[in-house]
């Protein structure tokens, strides 16, 4: 009887460990080229490739969970997944709610307008400025004096309204903006003004107190940079380093 109990207990511990070692990654799936739903219906993109490389380095299985952007932190806190790899900027506000790893890439903001529009980015008074809700770009759009900020649920909807002319200027993270300008939909548009350096570092969010997972992720980030995995993934998406 006793040995059966011990056996059961051992099994529970083993399976408990196996479960604990599967890391669930939350991502948005609507932010190309960083995270999007690929042709096969699975998450793909820079974030996803990085997350897969990290999981491989940590020797764990990873499962991806897609979640709308403005519910992505609440979802982490509610335990629907263990880490957010979704191009999330490390900000003080967010650090009150979650912990971040070291950066895995850096970002800056740019303005996008239709080609041929002459706009002084220093003076956007009276203009409609679009951005995705709950992002750094949105904070920036809302902080522009005299401009009317319009906030969208997804970056794609913001692009749609830029092409319909409802917004004059789009504030966007530079790298996804760069990717969009290269696409067919974006060919009539261009960056204007200077790069807005906002000291924007992108990290992986974990629940507060989940220091063990954060340390493992940090170690894995250092490792993939050192062994060239990072550079390979980087060059798949951008001809310049984004670290």
């Amino acid at each position: 009887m006793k040995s059966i109990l011990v056996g059961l207990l051992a099994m529970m511990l083993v399976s408990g460990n196996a479960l604990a070692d599967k890391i669930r990654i939350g991502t948005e799936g609507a932010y190309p080229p960083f995270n999007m739903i690929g042709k096969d219906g699975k998450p793909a993109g820079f974030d996803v490739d990085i997350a897969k490389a990290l999981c491989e380095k940590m020797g764990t299985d990873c499962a991806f969970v897609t979640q709308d952007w403005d519910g992505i932190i609440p979802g982490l806190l509610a335990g629907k997944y263990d880490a957010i790899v979704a191009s999330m900027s490390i900000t003080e506000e967010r650090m009150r709610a979650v912990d971040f790893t070291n950066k895995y890439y850096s970002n800056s903001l740019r303005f996008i307008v239709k080609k041929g529009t002459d706009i002084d980015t220093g003076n956007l008074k009276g203009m409609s400025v679009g951005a995705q809700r709950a992002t750094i770009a949105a904070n920036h759009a809302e902080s522009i004096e005299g401009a009317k900020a319009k906030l969208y649920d997804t970056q794609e909807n913001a692009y749609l309204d830029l092409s319909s002319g409802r917004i004059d200027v789009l504030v966007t993270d530079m790298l996804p903006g760069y990717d969009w300008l290269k696409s067919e939909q974006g060919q009539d548009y261009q960056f204007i003004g200077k790069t807005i350096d906002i000291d924007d570092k992108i990290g992986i969010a974990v629940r507060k107190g989940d220091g063990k997972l954060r340390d493992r992720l940090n170690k894995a980030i250092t490792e993939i940079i050192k062994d060239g995995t990072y550079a390979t993934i980087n060059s798949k998406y951008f001809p310049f380093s984004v670290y």
Partner: protein
Amino acid sequence: MSWNWEVIFSSLPKLLEGTLLTLELVVISLLVGAVLSIPLALMRTSANPLIRGIPLGYTFFFRGTPLLVQLFLFYYGLAQFDAVRESIFWPYLREAYWCALIVFTLNTTAYTTEILRGAIQAVPNGEIEAAQSIGMSRALMFRRITLPLAYRIALPAYSNEIILMLKGSALASTITLLDLTGMARTIIARTYMPIEIFFAAGCIYLLLTFIFVQLYRLFERRMLRHQAARTSDASATS
């Protein structure tokens, strides 16, 4: 988790601002819908299959697709066509406010039309025959007999439509409008306190529904007072 009352109180002014936009969208679309649904319901009850078919196609589409899909098609979809952007309507269609208002109106008109259609058909035949027998014209009969009776029959079902419209208006937030839900989501983006803010927004919706149900009950009691008299007579005699 720790519950933060302070963020609820400090967000209240913004949430009430959003509530005003919600009310504006809902009240205007309901009023316009109530008017537009009368001729449409009449057409729906016509004996001519062609006249009957046109509003049927319209109500079939608007009752058969989600409001969100209608909003997206109208707001993001239409705007992709150059012809639309160059048309005289663009100054209006450009604004999310007008798009929401138009879609909400079309949506609620479709439902109201069907509610009214059912009610018109449920008007007792005897009343119609009585009107005909004293030689009332069709227009007069419709105005004096059919429509008033149909409205009384439709009243209880229509209150549901109003409540559904109030809640459905939350979708305005998906096309950049800062209605109650849109405002709540924008505040959440800054504070990361979704539970508190959605709780507050939910309370406001509940309060709106409560006030509306009370007012509607008074209105219904007045409109249906002949029935109330009948039921109290019945209980008095039994």
